[in-house]
C-alpha cells in the first residue's frame, strides 16, 4: 500500500470517528418534546408532595408526635422508577379509614420534578429521601414498616444491606414487584446505546399524565440498570436481614416491566435473621405494581379484589 493510499484511509477513519462522535454528542443532548402543560417532565407540573410535604410525609405532618402517635405503626411507602407518590395514594386512602396506622409517602430524589432533574440524579439521589424519612421516624421512636414497589425495592434493600439506616426499629418489609432482573433485557445495552438513544418514551395511560415521567433519559435508565445489577449480585452472594425484620414479596406473574425471576433471586439470596426463607407470593396479574389501579385505562374485577386483599394483608402484617 502506497503512502498516499494510507493517508486517504487515515483521513477517512478520522472523519468517520468525528462524524460518529459529533452525531452522538448532538443526540445525547437532544430534549424530548415535553408538553409543559401536562407532562411531569416539564417545568410546570410537579409532585404535590414537594409543595405540601405535610400531606405526604409523616415527619412533616406530625413534627412533634405524642405518645398516642408513637403507639401507632408508621408505614413508609416507596414508589418506583419514574413514578411519584401517586403510586401509593390508594393504599394511603384505604388505610386511613382504619385510623390506627400512619403512612408516610416518600418521593424519590430526582422524581416528581422535571426532565433535567431526572436526568442528572443518581440512584443514590433517588434513595436519599427514604433514608431521611426513616431516620426522622426512627428518631421520633416510631415502630417502622416499609412497603416498596418496583425500583423502590432495591433502593430499600440496598439501604438495609449497606447499613445506611439503623434497622433496629424496622419490622415488616413488603416488596411489590421488586426489580432485580428487568423484563426488558435491552436495558443492559443502555451504556452502549446511550449516545444514540438519549431517551425513551413511555406510553402513558390517560390517568397517568402528570404523575409519571413520560420520557426516560438514558442516564436514568443507566442508573436503574446499575442499581438492579448491584442488588442482584448482592443477592447472588446472599445476605441475611437483621433480627426482627420479616419480609414478604408479592410478584405479578405477567409483569411487562419486571422479570418474575426477580422473585426467584430474592427467595434464593435473602434470608431472615434466623436463616428462614422469606415469603414469596406469585400473584396472578398482568399489571406491574398491581397494588395501584388508579390512573389505569382498564383493570378487571379480579385486579380490584387482588388489590384489596393485598392491602388487607399489608395492614394485618403492620398492625
Amino acid at each position, binding site marked *: 500500500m502506497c503512502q498516499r493510499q494510507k493517508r486517504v484511509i487515515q483521513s477517512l477513519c478520522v472523519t468517520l470517528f468525528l462524524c460518529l462522535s459529533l452525531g452522538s454528542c448532538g443526540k445525547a443532548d437532544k430534549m424530548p418534546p415535553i408538553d409543559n402543560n401536562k407532562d411531569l417532565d416539564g417545568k410546570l407540573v410537579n409532585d404535590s408532595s414537594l409543595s405540601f410535604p405535610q400531606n405526604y410525609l409523616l415527619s412533616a405532618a406530625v413534627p412533634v408526635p405524642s405518645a398516642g402517635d408513637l403507639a401507632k405503626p408508621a408505614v413508609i411507602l416507596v414508589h418506583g422508577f419514574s413514578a411519584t407518590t401517586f403510586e401509593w395514594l390508594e393504599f394511603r386512602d384505604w388505610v386511613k379509614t382504619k385510623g390506627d396506622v400512619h403512612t408516610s409517602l416518600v418521593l424519590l430524589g430526582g422524581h416528581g420534578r422535571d426532565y433535567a432533574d431526572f436526568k442528572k440524579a443518581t440512584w443514590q439521589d433517588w434513595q436519599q429521601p427514604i433514608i431521611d424519612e426513616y431516620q426522622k421516624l426512627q428518631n421520633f421512636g416510631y415502630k417502622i414498616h416499609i412497603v416498596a414497589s418496583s425500583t423502590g425495592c432495591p433502593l430499600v434493600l440496598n439501604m438495609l444491606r449497606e447499613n445506611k439506616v439503623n434497622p433496629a426499629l424496622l419490622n415488616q418489609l413488603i416488596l411489590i414487584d421488586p426489580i432485580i432482573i428487568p423484563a426488558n*433485557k435491552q*436495558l443492559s*445495552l443502555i451504556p452502549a446505546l446511550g449516545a444514540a438513544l438519549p431517551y425513551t418514551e413511555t406510553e402513558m395511560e390517560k390517568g397517568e399524565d402528570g404523575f409519571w415521567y413520560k420520557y426516560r433519559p438514558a442516564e436514568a435508565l443507566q442508573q436503574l440498570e446499575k442499581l438492579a445489577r448491584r442488588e442482584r449480585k448482592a443477592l447472588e452472594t446472599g445476605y441475611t436481614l437483621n433480627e426482627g425484620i420479616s419480609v414478604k414479596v408479592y410478584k405479578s406473574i*405477567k409483569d411487562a416491566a419486571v*422479570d418474575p*425471576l426477580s422473585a426467584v433471586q430474592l427467595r434464593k439470596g435473602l434470608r431472615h435473621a434466623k436463616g428462614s426463607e422469606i415469603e414469596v407470593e406469585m400473584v396472578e396479574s398482568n399489571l406491574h405494581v398491581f397494588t395501584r389501579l388508579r390512573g389505569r385505562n382498564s383493570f378487571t374485577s379480579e385486579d380490584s379484589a387482588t388489590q384489596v386483599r393485598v392491602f388487607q394483608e399489608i395492614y394485618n402484617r403492620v398492625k
Partner: protein
Amino acid sequence: MKNPLLLILGFALSSAQIHAQMAKNYNLNAGIRVQKSIGFYCNNGVAAEFSSPHLFNQKLTLGMNLLSSRLGSAFLNHGIAYHEIQISALHYFRSAKRIQPLVRLNTGLAFSRYGSSVFRDIPASSLLLSAETGVGMDMNKQLKFSFSAGYNAITGNGTRGFGMVWPIFVQFSALYRFGIVTGV
C-alpha cells in the same frame, strides 16, 4: 519373498502413513468455553469442535457447547442455576493461517431449575438460536483460542419466554486439538 518381515514392516509403515494422512483431515478440538451475557450471567463449560473432509471438505465445522451458570455466576452461591446445551455450525475463514475470522450459528436448549413450586408458572426453558462472529487463533499445533461476540435471537421477559437468555454475549474458548479420530 526373501524377507517377509520387511514386507510386513513396509505394509505397516505405509498403512500408518495413509492413516496419518487421513487422520490429519479429521479434527477434533475440545476444551473450555467462557460465555458472558452483557449485563447478566457468566456461563461456563465445555466445548468441542469437529471437522472432516466429508463436511463440505472441512469448510464447515460442527460444534457443541455444554454451559452452566453453576460453573460461572452461580458457582457456589445463591445465583439461579441455568444451563445451555448448544450445537453449532461454524466456518473459519483463512483456515490455513494463524488468525482465522469465524462465523457461527448456534441452536439448542436453555433451562433452569427454580427450586420451588411457587415458581411453577414462570417459563423455565427456551430454545436457543444465536449467531456469533469473531476470530479464532491457532496458538500452536495443539492449542486454539477463539473470541467472539454473539446475539441471541430468542430472548424472553419472564412472562413471554424464558428470562435467563439475554441478547448480547461474548465468549472465549480454549480448545486442545486431539487431531486423530478413528474410523478412517
